[in-house]
């Protein structure tokens, strides 16, 4: 299944850093996200961005993960020529990532 089936998300920006909040719909989905959505996985998904490091913060009481994508915006709003200078669309792009949920058979 897609991450979009398990969570909703919002991106923000500070300078050249993009931050993406991923909020699982329930506790089971949150557990799946903690297991599957490693910083390396997020970085690999966005291999086309000039990311230097990804930090992940866990907020179990909110079923939320916060990802901080350093360098993702290539200089930030005031430096990039991207149409989406703020990287506002990145959260939606992350939701396209495939997730192996626990209750899902690998052969589904």
């Amino acid at each position, binding site marked *: 299944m897609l991450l979009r089936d398990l969570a*909703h998300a919002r991106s923000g920006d500070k300078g050249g850093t993009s931050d993406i909040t991923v*909020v699982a719909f329930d506790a089971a989905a949150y557990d799946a996200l903690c297991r599957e959505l490693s910083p390396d996985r997020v970085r690999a998904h966005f291999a086309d961005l000039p990311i230097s490091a990804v930090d992940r913060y866990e907020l179990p009481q909110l079923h939320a993960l916060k990802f901080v994508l350093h360098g993702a915006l290539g200089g930030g709003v005031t430096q990039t020529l991207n149409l989406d200078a703020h990287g506002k669309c990145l959260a939606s792009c992350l939701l396209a990532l495939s997730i192996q949920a626990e209750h899902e058979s690998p052969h589904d």
Partner: protein
Amino acid sequence: MPGSVRIGAGAGFADDRIEPAVELVERGELDFLVFECLAERTIALRQLERRRDPAAGFDPLLRDRMSAVLAGCRSRGVRIVTNAGAANPPGAAAVVADVARAASLRLRIAIVLGDDVLDLLDAPDAISANAYLGSEGIVEALDGGADVVVTGRVADAALFAGPLVHAHRWARDDWEHLASALTVGHLLECAGQVTGGYFADPGVNDVPGLADLGFPFADVGADGRIEIGKVAGTGGVVNVRTCTQQLLYEVHDPARYITPDAVVDFSRVWFTEVGESRVAVHGVDAGPPPATLKVSVGSAAGFVGEGEISYAGPGCLARADLALEILEKRLRDAGLDAVQFRFERIGVDATRRGADAAVPHDLAEVRVRVAGRVRTEADAERIGREVTGLWLNGPAGGGGARRRVTEEVAIRSTTVPRALVPTRVEWVEA
């Protein structure tokens, strides 16, 4: 909540809608109304405007916003705080006074100054340097009886913390209560983003009435209790999901949300839905702020020239790719003194990033976009003209060509010792 104070968000950015603030004033039973109008680079852009016209440099919608709410605020005793002063807070205060006089309103307007620290920096290329002030100046202004407080750069959360600290007489080192005040500020600073704006995703997160989205308010008790709500009957929704997205919005380490008033810990915050579009906030904490203030430094960054043109129908993607091929060659041969270029296809790869899908064989329509950063306005014009040149000289069926040129500012961050940035309050009577 007995003894609680109600504070509303009337704008979350410079271009925000005006009607939701009017609704809050008329039906929200507010004590305070905050208009947040400054993004990261807004002051630098306003400073460029002020260089061209010394009377400019503040938020261009200020007169419209004040004309819409000032009389209602005065008659209901709602006091206003806004950072719409941008690069010219005294100029903004003069506009507020002007609107008040035109409506025969008597007002005490406070101007919070001190954020402009350009003189403190050794930065010859800078056009602006503004420190993020805390709530101190706003508290002083409200303690002094201000009906309207106009600021330049102040931390967004402090715009809301100021009125709460003033109303509840909280001490500057009362970390527990400052945590509440600043959390309210962070949840409300983007206005509609906590009431269902920037949240709807049909079938996943459905939001009713987005065309008439209501803006939020917070009820904040003297004990620091917080409830977030909106005016009954307005569009949108306040729930645990909208509050969770906004709590973490543009926060990096949730345990260290740094503001000039305190470092707030969001890492144990949780929400409960206590009524229709009414959410209680729990578990906030805070500690002392850093000894330095963040400063945003703006500098000239040349010009960006852009052009776009659309292709539709069978084969449109191939024609778009041909257009890009032509543009790349033409711009390379033009010998522009370009810092960088970007070529993209809107509908394919303009905003989409990540490893989610292959490029389709064809689309119903696609729009070509080229952007380039160059040193002169003339070179920037040239970039857009190469795109409009495709009208007669490019692939078949190009339509809707547009071009534009933007003067750019770059923003970098630094810090200055807090002791070097005294805040002061000046007064205007209307």
